[in-house]
């Protein structure tokens, strides 16, 4: 029974983190078929920004996080104007943007490694899993309140994004652009501004996801690489551009990873996810929740 609770607790945490990262990726892909390989570095930057603001200003993490998200969003805008903005007209934009943002991400990562190598923190926000004032017992398993905060933040943010997409004009513009870029343009939607907005939103979410990551992982220039790949796996599993599906898939992937980590060994988590996803994709090549769509030319 204990390991079962353990799996659920850590699975929900992984799931929450992947959901935020994957939500951003799916939004950006939906809006203009861009897969942002620099998304991982934004997660890393989010964690660093949070550290920075929390330490410089002596703010508690909870107040530093929104500033970090804004900085992350700003970096997303920068990514747009450095790469995608100049490439929108390219024939196979889908492919070239992956390579371009891969280069950008690697350059940024190498830059962080060069200049912030000393700024290394061992899981700065992790809370001890022993029973104390910070945690409570479920069965025999101590669950820290921090985990609850992580789940709550993820849930609230996802709901806010949902409300934003369905209730506001800007959100409707994003969805319209995702449905048909040309029709949206004809309706007078400034699609390029929508692209910038989507990237800013996605990057802000990535930054928060990075802060969540720093609650159990070390803050390090390379920290974003692994979760980025898992977030990619999540959106592939869900079917590219399927936003609701991505949330379920994130939870599923988080649970599978936690199960393998608890029952087998830490290092086989990723392998298990990949095997699962490939099996799922052989069964449904367009993703679990995807429909076969005619590729947009």
């Amino acid at each position, binding site marked *: 029974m204990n390991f079962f609770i353990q799996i659920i607790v850590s699975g929900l945490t992984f799931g929450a983190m992947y959901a935020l990262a994957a939500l951003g990726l799916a939004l950006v892909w939906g809006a203009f078929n861009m897969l942002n390989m620099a998304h991982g570095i934004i997660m890393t930057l989010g964690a660093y920004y949070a550290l920075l603001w929390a330490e410089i200003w002596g703010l508690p993490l909870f107040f530093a996080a929104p500033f970090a998200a804004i900085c992350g969003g700003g970096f997303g805008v920068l990514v747009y104007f450095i790469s995608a903005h100049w490439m929108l007209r390219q024939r196979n934009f889908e492919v070239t943007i992956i*390579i371009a943002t891969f280069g950008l991400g690697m350059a940024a990562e190498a830059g962080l490694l060069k200049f912030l190598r000393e700024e290394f923190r061992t899981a700065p926000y992790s809370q001890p899993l022993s029973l104390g004032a910070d945690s409570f017992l479920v069965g025999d398993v101590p669950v820290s309140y921090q985990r609850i905060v992580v789940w709550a933040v993820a849930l609230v943010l996802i709901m806010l994004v949902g409300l934003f997409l369905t209730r506001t004009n800007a959100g409707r513009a994003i969805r319209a652009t995702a449905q048909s870029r040309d029709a949206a343009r004809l309706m007078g939607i400034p699609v390029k501004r929508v692209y910038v907005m989507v990237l800013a939103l996605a990057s802000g979410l990535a930054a928060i996801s990075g802060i969540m990551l720093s609650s159990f992982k070390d803050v390090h220039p390379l920290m974003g690489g692994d979760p980025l790949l898992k977030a990619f796996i999540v959106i592939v599993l869900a079917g590219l551009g399927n936003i609701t599906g991505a949330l379920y898939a994130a939870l599923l992937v988080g649970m599978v990873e936690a199960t393998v980590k608890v029952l087998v060994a830490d290092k086989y988590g990723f392998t298990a996810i*990949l095997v699962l996803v490939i099996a799922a994709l052989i069964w449904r090549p*367009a993703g679990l929740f995807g429909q076969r769509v005619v590729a947009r030319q």
Partner: protein
Amino acid sequence: MKYRDLIIFAILLAIAIAFPWMGVKRYLIASALIMFCYATVVSQWNLVFGIAGIFSLAQVAIFAFGAYTTAVLGRYMDLTLWYAFPIAGLAGMVFSFFVGLACLRMRGIYVALLTLAISQVMFVLIQTDSACSPLNQRDNPATCVSFTGGAQGLGGFGSFGWRDVLGGRNWILGDYYTMLALLVVALIFTAAVTQSRIGLAFKALRDNEELARSRGVSVFKYQLIVFAASAFLTAMAGGFYAAHFGAVGSNLVAFPLLLFLISMLVVGGIGKAWGPLLGAFLLMAADEVFKEFSDWRNIGLGMIVLVFMIFLPEGVAGAIEAVSKRATRLWTALRRRSSA
């Protein structure tokens, strides 16, 4: 067109054969042979990506797979590496065949993400492999080396063996010409595939996919063939790499090598016949020139990839083609005007 390529090939080959005898320093010969190795990998990648249109990021994983297979065969089965290379090549083909079988039915972008994930899984599995392998305790039970060597890497599996034949001074020439031979085979193979029915099928698919499909051209089948076949030479290159350095490590599957190779592909020109050679040469040369700034290396490589994708997505080869086409047009226009 074809004659011109043949002449260029012959000239380059002559230069490459003569290069070690032109009084160059030893480390330049070593750099050149590593360049041949990378050029082999990139030429096969170009075949997979540029010709067959498979956006695979698993080429580095296949390369590492070949290197590790060679290392494991040499170390645990005491196999002479010359027997280990073809086995590694075949093992790479089988590996790649299964990767292709799993991924190639999906859309192009899915392939990129899945193959990248496969490389990362391989990296994680090697990096975290720390259980002592009994195979390494045969001679000395106290040693604890894991099967793949884990984060430390694996050595002690032999080399090409040129040291015994050519002596302690000239063994590098043996390595050099072996690597050159591999590259030549890789280039001939690439050209042969491009000219063959398979190349024709991909050309048809590129020009008009619907029509080609309706005429019975199966994308999946041809892509799988090219993906698996190209893995043979990629894995062989991995084996040669392992033999030259005498050690393998998880850095063979890590992102920096992927970045280095992808920048060769991009700078040379994706899908261009001379792209891989050009890219490998330019980037190895740049690596040599900027050696003192090695801690800027990955920053620079990343920026190079970004800038090329924005401004020169066809690479240097594409740019040369465009310039020469414009020059010919200008030349004919001028001639017509002067004759009129």
